[in-house]
């Protein structure tokens, strides 16, 4: 239904500089993406606040839900720097967020959602020179502390800042630094089935295809490098 108006669930023109897939491949990936980039967050906004808002677009009865949230951190200080990724289990949920949540307020700031190619190791950190997001370095306007309400509450500000600053102090890099969030249901008791001999059990099918396309991107990237 887009004859009369433009649908809001279209991805933006953003092109991830470090994902070396061409435009058509990117569009194809976005057309089934389950991940959103969320921008313009307050530096104080918590994952639980994000969870609360984005869970309103979840469809658990359809096998969906919030798989994980990856908070964007300043590369140097390990503190939130105003963006995150929300990963759902289904594409429809990501689209629903684009239509209903993008452009509304969270923690008193208007947030922006964009369909994303999917989280890859290292993307949780800002890529700007200062350690934060590149887009913030282009900003002309002064945005003090990027505070939602969190920054305004004078009395509690120091305490809150300390908490926020410490929250991700233990954030690590490298493989396994970010949790997966739980995969689809699998049979737990596999009493010595033949499947093991083949090194890959058929019930992993869904996950393998998921990993499969991820590794395909990696391949493409490797080729280009």
């Amino acid at each position, binding site marked *: 239904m887009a004859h009369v108006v433009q649908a809001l669930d279209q991805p933006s023109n953003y092109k991830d500089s470090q994902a070396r897939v061409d435009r058509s491949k990117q569009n194809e990936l976005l057309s089934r993406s389950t991940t959103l980039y969320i921008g313009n967050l307050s530096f104080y906004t918590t994952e639980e606040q994000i969870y609360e808002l984005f869970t309103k677009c979840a469809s658990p009865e*359809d096998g969906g839900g919030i798989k994980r949230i990856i908070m964007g951190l300043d590369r140097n200080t390990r503190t939130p720097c105003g963006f995150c990724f929300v990963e759902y289990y289904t594409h429809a949920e990501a689209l629903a967020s684009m239509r209903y949540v993008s452009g509304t307020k969270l*923690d008193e700031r208007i947030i922006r959602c964009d369909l994303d190619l999917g989280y890859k190791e290292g993307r949780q950190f800002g890529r700007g020179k200062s350690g934060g997001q590149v887009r913030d370095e282009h900003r002309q306007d002064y945005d003090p502390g990027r505070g939602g309400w969190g920054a305004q509450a004078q009395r509690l500000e120091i305490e809150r800042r300390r908490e926020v600053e410490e929250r991700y102090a233990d954030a690590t890099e490298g493989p396994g630094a970010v949790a997966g969030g739980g995969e689809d249901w699998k049979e737990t008791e596999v009493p010595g089935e033949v499947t093991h001999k083949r090194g890959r059990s058929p019930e992993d099918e869904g996950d393998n295809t998921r990993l499969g396309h991820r590794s395909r991107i990696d391949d493409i990237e490797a080729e280009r490098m």
Partner: protein
Amino acid sequence: MSNERPHRGGYRKRYNREDHDHDRRREPVETPEQKIRTSIIKMGEVDPLQEIPRLAQQIREQVPVVVPAISEGFRIGVTEQPYKIPYYAALLRLLHDQVEGDTNGAPSSTSSSLGKQILEDFWKGFQAFLDKLAWREIRLCIQFFAHLMAAKVISVQSMVYLLQAFSTVLDEFGVSYSRGKRAALCAAEGLMIAGAPLKTVSASSVAGIINAIQMYNESIVTSKFLIQPMMSLCSDATSLDNADELLDTALILLKSLEASNFAESSPAFPRPYLEYPDPENTTSGPFELPSILVPPEVIELDGLATDAGEDAQIKKEDWPEYYLHLFDNTITPDPTTLPGFIVRSNLLDIIDIFEVNRKECARLLLEYPKWNIPGTFKPQPGAPAAEEGLGGKDWQLESTIIETILGSLFILPDPSAKSVYQISLITELCKLSPSTVGPAVGKSIRKLYNALSDGLDTEIARRFAEWFAVHMSNFGFQWVWKEWLPDLALTEQHPKRAFMRRALEFEMRLSYHDRILKTLPEPMQLDPTVISDQAPGPDFEYDEPTHPHHDAAQSVLNLLRGRSKADEVMSHLDSLRDTLEISDTHMNIDTLIRFIAVQSLLSIGSRSFSHLLNAIERYLPLLRGLANGGIVGAGSGSSEAKQDILSAAAAFWKRNRQMVNIVFDKLMQYQIVDPTDVVAWTFTNVAGDSHLSGMRPLSLSAFEWDLLKGALDKANGRVMISRRKVAALRKEEDDTIARAKASGGADVASMEVDADAKPDETPAVESPALVTALKAFTSLTREQKAALSRTLEGFVSCLAPSVSDMHQNPHAGKVITQDAWDGRANWNADEWNAWETWGWYRHYCRVYSPYLRNYATTLSTVAFAKIEGSTEPPAELMKKIWNITTGQES
């Protein structure tokens, strides 16, 4: 990648170039056909009445006339901009006229008018909608045809046949409610728009159609008991003071229209074509709509059944639609009047169609008056007043819009879109016109709040709280809480008090405890039954150095903090078990160990959702071991262990119920516990000290409902995923077979024998992947059934307990009588709790009815065993609600 700067520069250049590419693609040069199509779609943006003749002229001047492009413009216009339908009818009416010199440039149009050619092509589009059973499009096309009939472009008799084709659907044997309701609305709206001429030509057909709708509506009357927005447990009355049911209303209106020969005291909606002289139908006559048959519903069966042989495929059914009235009929339209019904129908269609873009939707809603007869809505302040004697209805636009959006938000059992859509739509409206929409929102909130005392459905109350919180989050949490101060005198479980608590809790989840606290007047700030006195943090039971198990817990915590391996932690727990066993506890030692382990783990994961996931993933073997009863207490069963894990988690997050939901969800996701465990936990913990809602006798609040819903949705969602997997694998297999067959000619040696032996190409052996997927499907449907069944049992023990049950709620039977309800002003907390529990039972039945129907026999045999022969009122009511749900009560 190490060289940041040049790389970044390159990136930006590329970005810009691609940007331009994109822009170019977006603005292609329009062909003349596209141009005419666009002109038709955009018709009327400035002044429809003036534009129609101009556009008609423009269309005629096209050389050559491309009918498909024109009719596509009409098709899109009619089905995507329902407010323009009367104007499109007027445009087509003008095109229907034979024009002198028409033969000039269009040799093909000599025999029939351009209008007829367009209609012929338009009809193909209508037929396509019909084949797909695209009901909204079908209904909007019928509105269009009805206007065209009124404009004398379409013959009256063929319109009668068209409407009859839809009323015939209502006589089909076993017609589904979704189909029946939609077909009835098609016929009803057609009659409303074109009733007068229809009745003149064939009064009996009109009466016949109305009668068919009435008979149908009477046949489904019982289901209304479950979805009325005001819950009445003691009365079967289907009409409500402050709400109306869509089909009921359509019938009331049709009957009154019929009685008055469809005469209108003042014009109900625009009919611009009536301004034009009657068409000269002498040459070719009016257009005859071809006859149709509404095609049957096609249900694709995948043939997947549970291990007990039940059908596991769910068929979502519609329910009757009740719309709440918040405002007086002088402020917002009365839907039992013709203009009122049409306005609501239009607004609902706009809300539905423009779901893809809520911002445009908001704009179109606020512009809606311009498509109406002047005087329908009160003019905006500053605008010239409407001329006297035109419409004179003077409804308030914003109140009408908000009432309609909230009406669709509160449809039971589920709103048509995710409720956050309606919520965001209202936000957009407020942003566009704060000074006019804001007050309408405020008034609506007050009306709804007052309805809470009079039985507003529990699920609607929950959605109301959710809307309130999200809305306030978008507008600085500015609400005048002071005006509700007197209600602090009500018992703390009164629906109004429950609403305040819930709304504030939802607000806090989106913001901060201290932020929300500050929005409240002091008496509320200080009342822990309104808002907690401290931020909703974790509660590690063993944190206090004085706690007898502080040291033990600390030792576990240190291992986890130091990222010790899971088996090290497990062996430490084992040794702890031996040491602690000596010291006395009133708690079971296995339970204690599980509590310490789970709470320590949650403690290291308490900093954020991600920390929780990391902690769970790092210690999955530990959690699985605990859950199996394997690490500790090998003797005690695993279901007991799982209950302990859930109890430990709920206790850890007892001040933060959002986290209880999240932790339970992820414990299910990682398969530490099953949905049935969560259901069982919820029902066993809705009584006693650990009850998070502090509700003593067995009863459920919205929080427990959220836990149940989380578990049931998880179970149902898994079956859904599994079903899709099986379908995909089967398709893959079929494709492989098809390919093999196709290449069979070449591969003679291997294929020929097979092809002869098995002409129906069913493979003798399914692939291992498919076998596994089918096995998973069987396990998951079993789990699904168990979770649904456990829920039903739980409700039985809450609402119709046997004499021996623990924590009986003595009020479950009491609150369902009329006398009790009339005296609700004096109800105490337990009585309100019992009433709310009934509300959640009713909601459980209607919202999961597609699943419950499939498993009706098994579920009721098990769960209703205790109340089988009981004639006690609560048992009878439970069974009645169940029977309506499963379609056994007529």
